[in-house]
C-alpha cells in the first residue's frame, strides 16, 4: 500500500473515504425509501410543482415529476443533493492532495526523492479518481438497495449513464481544485474557488432560463453538460460526457504544467 504515492494516498484517505461512502450510501438509501409515500401523492405533488414559482421548480430539476421513480430520483438526488455531496468530497480532496502536503511541508521531502513531479501529480489524480469512484459507487449501492426495498425497477444501463455523468462532474471540480494548487494557490484558496465556481455555475445553469440569461452563458457552466437526471430516462449523451471528460483532461494538463514549472512554497 505504501509502495507508491498512489497507494499512500489511498491509505491516508481510507478513513475519510469510508465515512463519506457510508454517509452517501445511507443518504441515498434513506431518500429512496420515501418514494412509495411520495408516489401515492404524486398527482398532488406534481400539481404543487407546477404551481411553484419557476425558480424553485428549476432548482428541483427540469424534468421534475414525482410520477415515476426516475423523476423522483432526479428531483431528490441527481439534481442537487448527490452531486453536492460528491463535489464537496472531491473539491476538498483535490485541493488537499498537493496543497495539503505543501502546507504541512511534507512535499519538500517527497519531491527530494527520485520521483518526477508529474508522476506524483498523476498518481494523486489517479487516487482522486478512485476515491470519487468509490464514494459514488457507495451511493449507487444505496440507491439500488433502496429501489429493491421499495420494489421499483430501474433501467441499469441508464442508471450507469447517470452515474458516469455524476462521476465526471465530480472529477471535473476535483481536478479544477487540484489544478489551482498545481499553479500555486494555497489549499484553502483552491478549495474556496473550486466550491465557489461549482455553486455559481450551478445557479447560472439552473436559474439561467428564468433570469433570461443567454443560452451561451449557460453553456459555460459545466452543469449544462451534466446529465445525472436526464440520463435516467434518456440514457447516455455521449457528447456531454465527452465534453466533461475533456474538461477534466484540460484541468489535469493545467495542473501538470503549472506544478512542473513552479517553485514549491516553504
Amino acid at each position, binding site marked *: 500500500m505504501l509502495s507508491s504515492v498512489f497507494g499512500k494516498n489511498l491509505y491516508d484517505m481510507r478513513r475519510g473515504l469510508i465515512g463519506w461512502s457510508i454517509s452517501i450510501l445511507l443518504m441515498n438509501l434513506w431518500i429512496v425509501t420515501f418514494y412509495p409515500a411520495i408516489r401515492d401523492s404524486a398527482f398532488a405533488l406534481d400539481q404543487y410543482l407546477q404551481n411553484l414559482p419557476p425558480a424553485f421548480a428549476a432548482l428541483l430539476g427540469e424534468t421534475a415529476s414525482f410520477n415515476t421513480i426516475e423523476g423522483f430520483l432526479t428531483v431528490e438526488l441527481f439534481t442537487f443533493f448527490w452531486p453536492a455531496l460528491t463535489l464537496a468530497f472531491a473539491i476538498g480532496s483535490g485541493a488537499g492532495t498537493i496543497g495539503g502536503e505543501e502546507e504541512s511541508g511534507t512535499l519538500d521531502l517527497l519531491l527530494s526523492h527520485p520521483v518526477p513531479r508529474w508522476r506524483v501529480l498523476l498518481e494523486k489524480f489517479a487516487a482522486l479518481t478512485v476515491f470519487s469512484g468509490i464514494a459514488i459507487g457507495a451511493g449507487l449501492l444505496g440507491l439500488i438497495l433502496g429501489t429493491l426495498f421499495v420494489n421499483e425497477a430501474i433501467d441499469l444501463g441508464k442508471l450507469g449513464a447517470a452515474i458516469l455523468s455524476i462521476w465526471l462532474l465530480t472529477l471535473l471540480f476535483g481536478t479544477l481544485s487540484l489544478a489551482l494548487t498545481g499553479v500555486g494557490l494555497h489549499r484553502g484558496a483552491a478549495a474556496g474557488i473550486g466550491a465557489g465556481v461549482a455553486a455559481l455555475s450551478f445557479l447560472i445553469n439552473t436559474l439561467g432560463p428564468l433570469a433570461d440569461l443567454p443560452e451561451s452563458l449557460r453553456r459555460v457552466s459545466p452543469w449544462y453538460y451534466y446529465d445525472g437526471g436526464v440520463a435516467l430516462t434518456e440514457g447516455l449523451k455521449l457528447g456531454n460526457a465527452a465534453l466533461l471528460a475533456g474538461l477534466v483532461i484540460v484541468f489535469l494538463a493545467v495542473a501538470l504544467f503549472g506544478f512542473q*514549472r513552479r517553485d514549491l512554497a516553504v
Partner: protein
Amino acid sequence: MPEAIRLERLSKSYGKQRGVLDLDLEVQPGEVFGYLGPNGAGKTTTIRLLLDLIRPSSGRASIFGLDCQAQPIAVHRRVGYVPGELALYPKLTGEQTVRHFAALRGGVDPAWVNQLAERLDFDLKRPAQTYSSGNKRKLGLIVALMARPDLLLLDEASAGLDPLVQQAFYQILRELRAAGTTVFLSSHNLPEVERVCDRVAIIREGKLVAVQEISSLKAKALRRIEIVFDNHVPVAEFEGLAGVRDVSVTDRRLTFTVQGSLDSIFKAAARHTVQNVISYEPSLEEVFLSFYEGEVQHAV
C-alpha cells in the same frame, strides 16, 4: 571527477528581501562541507535550489556534474536530504515512513535501516505524530541516510538532537566520510561546523562572505578571553601584542579579544600569577565581523 556540488553565479530573488545572489562554490567529492550563516541568510534557499524544489532566477547548480534543474531525478537518486523544517506524515509510523520513501528509491537495505535506528536510539514502531522534535529529526536522518547516498544535504540536521545522539550522529558522519560520502551541512552553529567539517562557506544576507578551510577559520576567528590574576596587572604589558585587541583591566581581571594564536598573550600573562582563564566562543556575528573588518575575503 566532477565536483560533488558546483554553483555558478547562482541567484534566486524573491522580490526585495530574501534569496541568494551570485553564489559561486565548489564542493569536492568526499568533503564534509559546512554552510554557515544566521537564520534567513539563504542556506535553505541554496539547498532547495540544489534539489530543484525551487528554480534559480539565474545561474546554474550541478551535483556530480548533473544539472540540478535539467536532471533532477538523476540528482535525487544520489542525494539524501534532511529539511530544516522537517515535516513527516503524522499518521505513518516510523517504519511505514521508511517503507514509503524506500519504495520511492527502489528499495534499501533493511539491515542498514535497523542499524541506523539502533545507533540513533530510535523506535520505528510509533506513529510520527507522537514523536518529539528530536525523534522526528532522527527519522529524517534515517530516511536521508538509508539509501547510502553519495551526497548528504543536511539543513540544520543536528538541531534538536540531544547531546548523546548528536555524538552518534557525528560518528555516523565520520564513517560515511571515510566511505567517500560527501556531506553538505548547513548550520548556524559554529562549534558544530568546526567539529565535523573540512571546509566552510559563510553566507550572510544571501551572499557568500568567505570560503575557508576550518583551520584558517579558526585562525581568523576572534575570541574574547578573560584572565583573572591574583593581583592587579598593568594594562600596558598586554597592549600591542600580536593579534590582541580591546584590552582592558578591571580590578584583577584582564579582558581582550584575540585573533589567531594565543602564544604571545599567554607568555605575557605567565609573568604574573594566573588564577583563571575564561574563553568565550565567538558568536557567528563576531565571526562575520572578523571577516568584514578589512576587505571581504573570498578565497575559494
